[in-house]
């Protein structure tokens, strides 16, 4: 059995992390294309959005990410003007929106169902917004043509939506919104109805399109991979609250709570008590073992906390190593998935996932650990995070 111990070289350029992981607000108005200040929305008994504050910067690709029912779509609808906040205020380009109806807001929406008008051709659909604004016919024709070229559908102008595929309809919906040159483009799970392959293509295309037009995009999704790969910044929603706002790197590498760590990507949790806090690092005691990791916010000695270690940031070795966070484990199962080998080990009575990248091309089955084997789990303190409960 060959062991592969990954280099412990610093994997992440920590300097790339900006200092601003906190919730934005209260600064110069023009900085934000959209700002929510202490916005709450109540439907009957249900608090859909609970005191949310956030600022979306000009020209930013901003994702609102969370499981269904977390308040992300309601927040988007309040920006669009389809819902009015129960309390708090939405600002668009520094102006409070109050009860401004959707048709007087300088934002456009790409709906999850696309909501193309079935009785209009593609060019009529795309030209509708300009027509409503009273733009002269000749200019409408020119801009519709440009918009359809932008989404690479110039030959489809005379078609009806039902004669097009889902991906094409999606582009028409994009063109119909972008042709109005809104201050902000709101996208409600726009890729949700597409199949996996098309989805990947559209992710890249959408991102490129946003750079090209330079319009602020606010993107609602429940797909964390989509949010990570496309966004400049992400707001993670849960139960009507915004838990964390940050760049994809910050959200993934420095989640500020257990929910974010759990929702974004995969992670292993080890629960225990905080034994010691020493500057940037802390020690967690669990089941007689001591784990060292980065100290999260609000950690107190003696309090319950969880250690979070991403599966790709831990290694399995054959021999014990003289380092922090090295524990004997038993291999439970091994799954070869091509790019990675995913090993589940038992740490005491707890499952622990380890993903090893298959950086070596081999046909030797002994290269991998086998179920039932004894091994040692190691991870660097820098790669673990201790989060307050």
């Amino acid at each position, binding site marked *: 059995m060959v062991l592969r111990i990954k280099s412990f070289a610093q994997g992440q350029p920590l300097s790339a992390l900006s200092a601003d992981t906190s919730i934005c607000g209260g600064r110069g108005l023009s900085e934000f294309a959209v700002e929510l200040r202490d916005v709450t929305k109540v439907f009957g008994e249900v608090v859909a959005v609970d005191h949310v504050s956030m600022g979306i910067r000009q020209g930013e690709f901003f994702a609102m990410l969370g499981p269904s029912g977390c308040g992300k779509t309601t927040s988007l609808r309040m920006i*669009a003007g389809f819902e009015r906040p129960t309390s708090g205020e939405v600002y668009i380009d520094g102006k409070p929106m109050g009860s401004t109806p959707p048709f007087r807001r300088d934002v456009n929406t790409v709906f999850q169902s696309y909501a193309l008008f079935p009785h209009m051709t593609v060019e009529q659909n795309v030209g509708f917004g300009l027509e409503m*604004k009273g733009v002269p016919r000749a200019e409408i024709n020119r801009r519709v043509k440009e918009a359809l070229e932008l989404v690479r559908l110039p030959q489809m102008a005379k078609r009806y939506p039902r004669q097009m595929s889902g991906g094409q309809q999606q582009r028409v919906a994009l063109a119909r919104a972008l042709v*109005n040159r809104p201050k902000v483009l709101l996208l409600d799970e726009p890729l949700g109805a597409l199949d996996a392959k098309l989805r990947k293509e559209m992710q890249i295309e959408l991102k490129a399109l946003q750079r090209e037009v330079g319009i602020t995009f606010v993107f609602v999704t429940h797909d964390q991979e989509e949010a990570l790969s496309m966004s400049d910044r992400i707001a993670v929603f849960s139960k009507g609250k915004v838990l964390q706002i940050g760049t994809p790197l910050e959200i993934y590498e420095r989640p500020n709570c257990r929910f974010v760590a759990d929702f974004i990507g995969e992670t292993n949790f080890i629960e225990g008590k905080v034994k010691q806090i020493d500057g940037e690092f802390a020690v967690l005691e669990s089941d007689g073992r001591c784990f060292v990791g980065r100290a999260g916010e609000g950690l107190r000695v003696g309090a319950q906390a969880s250690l979070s270690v991403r599966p790709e940031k831990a290694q399995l070795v054959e021999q014990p190593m003289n380092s922090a966070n090295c524990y004997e484990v038993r291999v439970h199962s091994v799954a070869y998935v091509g790019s990675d080998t995913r090993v589940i080990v038992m740490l005491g009575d707890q499952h622990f996932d380890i993903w090893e990248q298959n950086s070596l091309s081999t046909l030797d089955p002994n290269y991998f650990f086998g179920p039932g084997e004894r091994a040692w789990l190691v991870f660097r303190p820098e790669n673990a995070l201790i989060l307050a409960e």
Partner: protein
Amino acid sequence: MIQALREHPALRLVALMTPGAFWLAVFFLIPLGIMGVISFMSRDAQGFPAPPYTLSNYQNIIRDIRFAPSLSLEGGLSIRLFEGLYLDLFWRSIWISLVSTLITLVIAFPVALFMAQLPRRYRNLALFAVMIPFWTNFLVRTYALQFMLRGNGPINTLLRSLNLEPIELLFTPTAVLIGLVYGNLPFMILPLYTSLEKFDWTMIEAAHDLGANTWSAFTRVMLPLVSPGLVAGSILTFVPSIGSYITVDLMGGGRTNLIGYSIAQQFSASVNWPFGSALSLVMMIIVTIAAVIYFRSSRGGSRAVI
């Protein structure tokens, strides 16, 4: 045999069509043909249809049409180029039916809209409420309506108690209109409701999002998308109005003569079946042409939905 039906779509089509086709042939097409024949016959001594065959029934309808341009402000602006006894009758029937269809539509649309937006469990209750009047005989309901509009009926009693002048309603064209709208309302509400219930409200949000105000969203997006219900309801209202007899008789009291009433007169009091048949066929042709024009003009909207 079932197996054969399953395997041959053409055979299946024939099998499914036969009962309906048979029924329509025996009770609709053959009588219609007989009427067509009668319309070219003369009358015998008792007034019943008999040879010789003639065109005179049709000639009688158009005989007195003459060019007589006129402009009248009486009862709304009307510009006329021709006049003639039966031409006027047809024209008045079409006009009253159009007005009644329009009023029915204006009343029915908000009702259907309201019903379509009710929580699902209340919708069937609302549908039930719309259909309750069908449980009572139409004649009885029309008599009840007559009672409402009478000189000393509830409406005028109310007006008098408010120290207002009583109004003469019964046996006026207005009474006929009220009767037609009342009778046809469910036939407008039901198809409209069916269309509105399927309506995707995201369309309205999309229209607003693109800068359409409430009126534009309604006229440019909602109306075209519910046009199948609009067309169906309008035809179900317009066609029976033109041929209506009971309502015209009881509400108009014989003073407002519409084509359906005239035809009935030819078959009963006047005992002139050939002329009545000719009037019926001319009316049928006019209504068919009107319906085709109407379907054509609204096809753009309905095509997208059907």
